């Protein structure tokens, strides 16, 4: 059950009983960290181990290897294929446990995997993908010896050029238990629940249709375990999500697919999606191939046709219209917080203040480099500004207007790692929404084939019955729980280095950041 402190006595006097709680018994999911090994036989690795015919199967390699790369199963005559993804490469030599040098026959060779450069892209380099897999597998920060550069991507700008200026030693020594990574989502004193989540992020909206129900359920269950939220996206509300209602945000987007008063009443947070970072100004896309019978039923749409949400809300043409929308939801669900998800145009700061004045609790800004199940390529790169620019702009404008502490600012669209989370918060956000990172944890390789045909060949962003079976809910849940745990650990380490007891202390602390492309001597330059 979510740990929000509802002022129930006050609310019960004014609200109908049926909007205070979901009717469905809520399922608990334990926050247990345990190994969730890769689901593919050959996990992609940075290094590959070759064993030649000189091998006498003496077992020395298995004996010396600290990482269990070499496996000779009991009763088997030959070694199994080496678990390359566990190998740390030639740096192992320093440890004195390097199989290549220890092999009496000289039968082993370790080389960089030639396939490595085919994985990843500028925003998600191979190192970041592999590190995310490792975190999802172990629940821990990847060991240093693997040499993964997982703090940022390789895009050459934004978060990837920002670094923290850590003090030589922490001003205060803090234990992990003394650091609070939770944030409050309701900063308005309006009698609605003071919802607090344990980590400064929640899962982004992914509709049933864009992803499988296994993916949706895995996200939801992980949200329960971490006392945070996931979002239905705009494709309707699966009945199978109901045991997790208390940790679900349902989305009201321009297509209104599957939106009913009853679904709005299920949840503690309702999100208006005005725009999406990956396709600002265009509305949602679900290509016809993925509109299967189950999806069509859920969305109350015709089977097999492409579904395009309109842009914009044809009932919203001003902040006053937006306020009417918010009033509508607040009336339908009298315990819900309202989130307003917008993209990042030039005037995103005005939009944010306007949205606050209309009554929203959460302003969710989604930057231009965000994820999607399908979007025109022209929209992904060219429309609206990256989130790194928008966060400070909105944060400062809200502060100038005197309302910064009355609204929660959530950023998304290119948050790939715990370091991105920390940088976004240092730029001025209260927290973030993540999406692609969760999918990478489930085994996504970012091949960009989610949009059509049977959808994702990896069984994540698909509605194909056969492909969906490539992953089960238990495994998916554990992978995301593990990823969250690793991210939280990284975040705690950052806060410990700054001697901060709470993530909220980091908010807006741009003085703790530096940019690799700048002189970082702003005060000296101003004085001159």
């Amino acid at each position, binding site marked *: 059950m979510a740990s929000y402190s509802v002022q129930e006595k006050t609310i019960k006097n004014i609200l109908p009983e049926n909007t205070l709680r979901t009717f469905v018994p809520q399922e608990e999911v334990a926050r247990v960290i345990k190994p969730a090994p890769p689901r593919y036989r*050959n996990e992609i690795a940075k290094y590959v181990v070759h064993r030649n015919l000189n091998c006498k199967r003496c077992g020395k390699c298995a004996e010396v290897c600290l990482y269990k790369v070499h496996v000779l199963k009991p009763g088997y005559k030959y070694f199994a294929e080496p678990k390359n993804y566990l190998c740390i490469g030639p740096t192992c030599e320093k440890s004195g446990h390097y199989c290549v040098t220890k092999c009496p026959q000289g039968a082993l060779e370790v080389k960089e995997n030639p396939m490595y450069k085919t994985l990843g892209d500028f925003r998600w380099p191979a190192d970041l993908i592999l590190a995310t897999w490792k975190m999802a597998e172990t629940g821990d920060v990847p060991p240093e010896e693997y040499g993964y550069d997982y703090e940022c991507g390789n895009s050459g700008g934004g978060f990837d050029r920002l670094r923290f200026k850590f003090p030589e030693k922490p001003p205060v020594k803090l234990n992990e238990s003394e650091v609070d990574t939770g944030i409050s989502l309701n900063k308005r004193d309006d009698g609605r629940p003071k919802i607090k989540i344990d980590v400064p992020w929640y899962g982004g909206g992914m509709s049933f249709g864009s992803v499988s129900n296994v993916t949706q359920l895995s996200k939801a269950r992980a949200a329960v375990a971490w006392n945070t939220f996931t979002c239905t996206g705009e494709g309707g509300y699966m009945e199978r999500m109901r045991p997790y209602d208390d940790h679900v945000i349902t989305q009201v987007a321009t297509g209104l697919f599957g939106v009913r008063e009853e679904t709005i009443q299920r949840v503690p947070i309702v999100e208006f999606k005005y725009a999406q970072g990956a396709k600002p100004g265009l509305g949602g896309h679900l290509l016809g191939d993925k509109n299967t019978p189950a999806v069509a039923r859920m969305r109350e749409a015709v089977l097999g046709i492409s579904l395009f949400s309109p842009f914009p809300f044809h009932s919203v043409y001003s902040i006053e219209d937006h306020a009417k929308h918010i009033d509508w939801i607040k009336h339908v669900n009298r315990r819900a917080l309202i989130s307003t998800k917008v993209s990042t145009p030039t005037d995103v700061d005005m939009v944010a203040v306007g949205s606050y004045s209309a009554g929203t609790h959460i302003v969710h800004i989604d930057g231009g480099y965000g994820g999607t199940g399908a979007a025109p390529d*022209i*929209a992904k790169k060219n*429309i609206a500004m990256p989130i790194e620019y928008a966060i400070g702009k909105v944060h400062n404008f809200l502060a100038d207007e005197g309302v910064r502490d009355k609204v929660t600012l959530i950023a998304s669209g290119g948050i790939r790692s715990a370091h991105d989370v920390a940088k976004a918060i240092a730029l001025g956000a209260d927290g973030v929404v993540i999406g692609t990172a969760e999918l990478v944890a489930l085994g996504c390789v970012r091949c*960009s084939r989610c949009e059509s045909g049977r959808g994702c060949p990896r069984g994540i962003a698909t509605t194909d019955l056969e492909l969906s079976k490539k992953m089960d809910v238990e495994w998916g849940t554990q992978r995301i729980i593990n990823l969250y745990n690793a991210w939280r650990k990284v975040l705690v380490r950052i806060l410990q280095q700054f001697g901060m007891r709470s993530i909220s202390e980091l908010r807006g602390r741009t003085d703790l*950041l530096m940019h690799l492309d700048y002189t970082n001597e702003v005060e000296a330059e101003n004085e001159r």
Partner: protein
Amino acid sequence: MPEKYHIKTQPVPPRRPRIGKYGVVDWREDCARCHNCVKKACVYDRYRQEADYIRNLSDVDALFFDCMGCFSCVQDCTKGLLCMSVNPVYENLGNSYWTPDIIKTTWLQAETAKIPVSGAGYRGPFAGQGFDSMWTDMSEIVRPTRDGIHGREYISTSVDIGRKLSFLAVDGEKATTSLPPLVSIPMPLILDMAFPAHALPQLDAIIKQTAVNTGLIAILDSRHWAGDDEQLEHIAFYLGPDSPDVPKEALRKTLLVEISDSGKVIERIKELKKIHPQIVVAVRVELTTEGVERAIKLAEFEEIEVIHIAADANGNEIGSTSSLQVGAKKPQFIKDMTRHIHTTLIEKGIRDEITLIAGGGVALPEHLAKEIICGADLVTINLPLLISLECHLCESCRPGMVCPAKLEKIDFDYGVGRMTNLIAAWHDQLIEVMGAMGMREVRRLRGDVGRAMFFENLEEETFGKLFGSRKND
């Protein structure tokens, strides 16, 4: 409802084998023949298709590159024998400006006429040079300048070419000013001449027919005119210094003509107007180091109606390759040169009287929109048309060299179909970005930099305040 601009398209499959980004799957020895990869892992059924393909192979250089890069077969292989790599043929497409990704997406649009759609988020660099250093804006909840809520079908992409008057003289209810001729085309795009190195005998006829099919205008060097005088309203003859004159009867059937810049440009315009008073004359100004100032100067003459500024193929100042030398000045890019010309003409109070056509470096539909935002009324393209015919941009167009796309053998209908499809896809994408911006008229997009965000401005506003000066700027 009035008839809307619509380009008729139909799929035109490639003549040559597809060149995918991935696809060289190395199948090492020791295969267990379990067929896990073949039968199960590939959801795209590529292994079977490859076998069929090889069975019917017609060209020895035609390998099968259609892997989707999902790694499923690689990761599911029982013995871990498969390895995927980037296709070296793909990596060799184009050059540093006309990247393999640009060429691939152009081929796709020429085949299908569809807007490229993909899953997952943006994969590229944060920002880049040229057109990659700006973003178009979009319209959110509060945007006082929005044109209003409208569907795609209400967005107009038509533009006028010619000189516009700054005022009308009126006598009573009758205008006494004689109106200069204007040419209207349904999309701000002109099909430019191919570069001499890429000229093919059959290309001009294909481009002309594409202009007819799309309702646009193609510029044709009069040296290459075959003498046919059908549908000349879709042709703008280019009269260069060495070009022969076009017969007067043929010229009178055209709406637009382009002349090269020279010291006698005003006299040349008067001569042409004498033959065909209703023709609109464009002056082509090559964007050499003096090109920008020359274009501004020309705009001050009242005889000048249209200026066509032309940068090199990569959008840079012409002749700037020498500037790659150490210490040389960085060449100006077309978007910046266009902005400078546009804003200078505004300051002089003459911008609205002139039509500004810009070309060079326009490789993608977003470049079309961005170039208009920077101040051009229309944009020209030539290389994308060539690429639509499966050109690799390998620059092997010399005697004795083999064209990998076999462009010398292209069929007329194939060429027209591919080019028409490409333009249709570009038109749809122009409408997409205009819809996102809340714009209903492409004419109003011209020079509206308020609908764009520039890298240098955003960096300064966001990080400049926090971190001081940007290094190496």
